[in-house]
């Protein structure tokens, strides 16, 4: 296999990992005002992702870094082209990250409510915008002969991409609800399970619609196959939520996210950013890539260290595997305690 293909696949894996992991983080944030009735329950929800959200977000940073290293032209065009949406994502991720750390540090209702708003908005915006971004990548954007984006902001707001945004938003919300049902006990678990069962139908309609549209638009056989598998996994997950099989439901929504991400990347291949103006202007794995030497170096680094990273990140999930209950959440912190 060509090294450019390997790196395209690796970047697909990084995005799939990012969506799989931060997907439920976003879902937990989005559901904060829906599933919790009081502050202790809000804290219970936040603490289910407390030890892991930061590590989960690193998948995004590594995906960005890997794109820079392996496909500089892709990184350059994508990041300068999707300027304002990325700025919004940055602001959201900044507020959200700080909110997790600072929310519990002052025992004051107004203080907590403000940070809650940051967590909710900071989870909702990226969950929507990543889908819009990927919708546009698949759809193709106006690139000139120098592979520069010449479309402006409004161009990014088209029905297909917006449906993509709605897909990630609803799918991550479902994934978050399923995660909360699995990781908590008591009232929140019950409510999360009920909500997940309720969300199932709409998510199938939206995500199914987006994958169908993608398949019809591109007609890529492997893409169809992966989309089909994602749809099956989603159906299975939704069924599992009906029967309150929490572990199975989480595995299934996780598989849905991973398979759907792979479906999008396989459909995109060998393009990395198609041009809607002329095929010759498209960025592909070949014309956007780094040199074979750089890709070789990066491959060795990835081969050597990815297993280690996966092992210790997996171990973290093992350490914090127990369900949390509202009773385990300590009283609001005093600075001196």
């Amino acid at each position, binding site marked *: 296999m060509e090294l450019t293909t390997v790196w395209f696949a690796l970047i697909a894996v990084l995005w799939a990992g990012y969506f799989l992991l931060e997907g439920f983080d976003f879902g937990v944030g989005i559901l904060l005002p829906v599933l919790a009735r009081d502050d202790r329950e809000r804290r219970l929800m936040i603490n289910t992702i407390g030890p892991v959200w930061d590590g989960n977000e690193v998948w995004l940073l590594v995906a960005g870094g890997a794109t820079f290293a392996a496909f500089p032209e892709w990184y350059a065009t994508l990041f*300068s082209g999707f300027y304002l949406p990325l700025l919004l994502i*940055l602001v959201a991720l900044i507020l959200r990250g700080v909110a997790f750390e600072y929310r*519990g540090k002052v025992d004051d209702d107004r203080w907590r409510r403000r940070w809650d708003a940051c967590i909710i908005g900071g989870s909702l915006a990226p969950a929507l915008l990543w889908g819009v971004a990927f919708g546009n990548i698949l759809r193709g954007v106006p690139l000139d002969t120098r592979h520069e984006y010449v479309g402006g902001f409004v161009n990014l707001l088209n029905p297909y991409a917006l449906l993509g945004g709605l897909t990630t938003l609803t799918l991550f919300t479902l994934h978050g609800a399923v995660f909360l049902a699995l990781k908590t006990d008591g009232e929140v678990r019950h409510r999360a399970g009920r909500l997940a069962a309720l969300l199932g139908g709409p998510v199938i309609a939206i995500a199914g619609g987006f994958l169908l549209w993608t398949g019809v638009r591109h007609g890529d056989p492997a893409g169809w196959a992966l989309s089909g598998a994602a749809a099956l996994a989603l159906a299975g997950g939704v069924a599992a939520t009906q029967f309150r099989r929490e572990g199975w439901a989480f595995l299934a929504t996780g598989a849905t996210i991973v398979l759907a991400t792979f479906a999008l990347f396989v459909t995109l291949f060998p393009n990395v950013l198609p041009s809607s103006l002329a095929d010759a202007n498209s960025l592909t794995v070949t014309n956007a890539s780094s040199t074979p030497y*750089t890709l070789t170096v990066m491959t060795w680094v990835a081969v050597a260290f990815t297993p280690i990273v996966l092992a210790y990140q997996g171990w973290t999930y093992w350490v914090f595997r127990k369900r949390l209950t509202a009773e385990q959440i300590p009283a609001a912190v005093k600075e001196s305690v």
Partner: protein
Amino acid sequence: MDALDLARWQFGITTVYHFIFVPITIGLSALVAGLQTAWVRTGKEHYLRATRFWGKLFLINFAMGVVTGIVQEFQFGMNWSDYSRFVGDVFGAPLAIEGLLAFFLESTFLGLWIFGWDRLPKKLHLATIWLASIGTLLSAYFILAANSWMQHPVGYTVNPDSGRAELTSIWAVLTNSTTLVTFPHTITACFLTAGALLLAVSAWHLRKGNQEEVFRPGLRLGAWVVLIAGVGVLITGDLQARIMTEQQPMKMAAAEALYQTSEPASFSLFTIGSLDGREEVASVRIPSLLSFMATGSPGGEVEGIDNLQAEYAQRYGEGDYVPYVPVTYWSFRLMIGFGALAMAIAALALWSSRKGRRPANRWLWIAAIATVGMPLLANSFGWIFTEMGRQPWTVFGVFKTAESVSPTVSAGEVATSLIVLTLLYGVLAVIEIGLFLRYARAGAPEIETPSDDPDRPLAFAY
């Protein structure tokens, strides 16, 4: 202002801001790990209380370092896409490696450390903070390797067909002589910064007679760290100056506003005159010092700005190759000055608190508390100097800043981003400082014995 100026302002503001939190993270993570090690080995409670106290301040600071770091990675592509196109093959590699080796390590193990107090065995829990600390050092190494490549590009060729830089030796990039001096210079400065934080916060408490058992050792430890790290900063800074003179002589000349090549060259402590230092009314000078800093010999020749400008114009074509001298001249002095001042205060604090003594002088207490800001200023001026001193280049001698900016991003878009991020950073600074002071004032916690009940409340929760 056009998109280029705005993008430069944004890079300057976001980078200086990010680097307020980074050195505290790097230095304090190791100091907290050291204190926790002392507790695990001796079982003395005051070490545990110190670990918890400094650990809390560390975490308040760490959150800001993390979130402002995301901006750093994104803005290369957003504002500097032509730079990214040109250097991606070389510059992207250390960035990606930094993510895979360092970011995962620090974030994962810090999560384990924060939430693992009552869930991990004592020694394993101790290992998590050390691993997080190692992660911060690795991160520093790779990002400094990337920056050093901009100062002194090695291990690459420019492909004449694509016009882009291509990596020929990753080993050369990772062992760049510039990296090898910049890394220890930066890391010792990080420890100086963290030491000053310990010194200042401890002094604030000791002055009021609070928790002597925690803050007296804190003051002494902080002051020693400032002194020892400060000596390291001086030695590595001296090595760096010599390498800089070799690799970027214009930066050294701009550091002194030295227009004519001189042998020997004197170093001015300060100058009163025109802003760019060309006309001088009065100055305080130390003879031969610049020669010594630049070449290691008091009689060495130091090239001047005018000579270098003529030389560069010949080599690289017509153009202005002189950095903005008022900034390079003063930032260089302020960097050294604030670092040295912090060291002097630390030495005084050590002397006047020797053998259980308590400093009586009110001004010494105030100075010790004020030390907290000095290394932060020194760090900022250091980066402003080294980045502004490289201008007009992004990659010295190879690629110019004016060619680096994103061609399709409008001035309006960059202005939006600059305003949004600056306002956001401003608000967050107020919140962060408020929280930091609140927790610093609260002092070290009392230790409660944890229960063995499996459903006990978490030792730590958001």
